[in-house]
């Protein structure tokens, strides 16, 4: 990519420069990420891959604003999120990030619709407006008939679809997914991935997904490899 072409592109949604992170275990200093540079375009769907301990989950946590970097910059939509206070970061996450977890992380005492409604409780929407948004995303993940079911009354695939609906309901610009199919069988996992890919296509959401499943990674437009805390290669699938 030459300089002229770079100028022609719109600014990336995610712009990471010289990002580093280390953990301290007793006297031991364990580097997890070292000098990572990464740009993710608005509307891009990327997969982060790498062996365990390569730092892919840490990178995802940093992008999602739930962990603090040791050094470097993470700009998302032009905001340096490392510079935000604890409370500002919480508000930023509520407005900008949708989360999809490996084990769905639904609250067991809340129904599917109530779980989906949670992020909307952080907005100024009225009860009626919240209900409309919830109904809309339930339809998108084809679970309208399960709105009042509790998580333990749903299959793994259905729970993950509820979690996807929760990630979408506040219309965030960025969706982070940590091993979204890690707890699902191949067929159900495939369905969940298809749903993610569809939503990405239809809604143009930027998705960053961590996975160690090459089949899952193929659904992304671009593959980013991490090894021992360093980016080693990027592959563009160019769907």
């Amino acid at each position: 990519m030459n300089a002229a072409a770079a100028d022609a592109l719109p600014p990336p949604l995610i712009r990471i420069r010289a990002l580093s992170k280390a953990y301290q275990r007793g006297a031991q200093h364990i580097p997890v990420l070292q000098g990572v540079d990464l740009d993710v375009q608005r509307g891009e769907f990327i997969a982060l891959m790498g062996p365990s301990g390569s730092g892919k989950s840490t990178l995802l946590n940093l992008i999602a604003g739930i962990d603090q970097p040791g050094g470097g910059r993470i700009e998302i939509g032009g905001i340096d999120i490392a510079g935000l206070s604890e409370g500002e970061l919480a508000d930023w996450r509520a407005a900008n990030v949708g989360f999809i977890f490996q084990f769905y992380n639904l609250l067991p005492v809340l129904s599917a619709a109530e779980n989906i409604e949670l992020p909307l409780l952080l907005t100024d929407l009225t009860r009626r407006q919240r209900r409309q948004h919830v109904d809309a995303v339930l339809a998108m993940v084809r679970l309208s008939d399960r709105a009042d079911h509790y998580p333990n009354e749903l299959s793994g695939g259905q729970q993950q679809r509820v979690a996807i609906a929760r990630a979408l309901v506040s219309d965030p610009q960025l969706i982070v997914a940590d091993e979204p199919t890690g707890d699902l069988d191949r067929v159900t996992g495939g369905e969940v991935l298809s749903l993610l890919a569809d939503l990405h296509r239809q809604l143009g959401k930027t998705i960053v997904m961590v996975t160690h499943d090459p089949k899952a990674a193929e659904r992304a437009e671009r593959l980013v490899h991490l090894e021992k805390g360093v980016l080693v290669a990027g592959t563009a699938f160019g769907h």
Partner: protein
Amino acid sequence: MKALPLSYIARNLWVRRVTTVLTALGMALVVFVFATVLMMSEGIRATLVATGQPDNMLVLRKGAGAEINSAIARTQAAVVESLPGIATDALGRRLVSKEPVALINLPKRGSGKPSNVTVRGTSDLGLTLRPQVRLAEGRMFRPGTSEIVTGRAIADGFVGAGRGETLRFGGRDWTVVGVLDAGRSGFDSEIWGDSEQMMQAFRRRDFSSMVVRLADAGDFERTRAAIDSDPRLLLEAKPEIRFYAEQSEALATFISILGTALSVIFSIGAIVGAMITMFAAVAQRVGEIGTLRALGFRRGAVLVAFLAEAMLLALVGGCVGLAAASLMQTVNISTTNFQTFSELAFRFTLTPGIAVETLLFALLMGLLGGFIPAWRAARLSIVDCLREA
């Protein structure tokens, strides 16, 4: 700051209902003790305050404090009786009762254990001056005879004090001709007879107290000034209500202090119980805490949610304890009042103030028990929570 919905908080308690119920019961027990002590203290106060009438003035020897150690000579009584501002009845008699008060020892029904009982000498004016007292059974004693009437608590509680029975004290036998219902005032725990007969029986030359009905309760200060300024009298006058309120003070305060101290000691146990329950709740829901925080709920929202959960738990315990305590209102008990050294029957009395105080006490236990676990929940790092989930 946006908070978590109350339904989330309440349902989490419901999900762990066995733990919730056991913890709440522990708190209910403490709340029960706390409430009954306040009710007891209030019951004593209410009983003694009901004993006084707003327009009655009580006269005692200066510094006597209680009727039992007061003395008013007949000459002094005559001076007081002639003061201006005293009400009269339809017959033109001055509404003044000159009363000797003595303590006797009677065995209780059932146990036979002796206890002190107040005997009061009065006249038919004694009833006029105390409209809350009425005859429940039989008739009033006749002047100049060895007839007596007994308060309801005495008639029921002491051997020989029922209507038609005979009591022996002061060197003679007294026939009980009636039973008084004193409307839960202190007179329920007294024996009344003819003033002059009592003076003879107890070999008294002086009265113990005088009850004076003022024509206008607003005249009290003037009447008191008249008594204070008369060098022959060496007496003091008090509004009857204040006198009886003071009589209840020592006992009510003693019960309050003892009871509150006990409640506080017990409550430490209940607070630790709530704390353990809440720590378990936090440990069980670490993943949920991480998820909520990731979704954008602030630390404060998590803190408030767990605090609210602990306080809701305590409120359940508080309501159960208060409900149990309210049943105590049907129980009549009696004890010895320190200030008069005599038996006083009263009821546990629940007032709105006590109910509010009790529930606040329960909520405070919840707050104290829930604070450290809630604080810990709010301080957890999101990444650690999600990793443990």
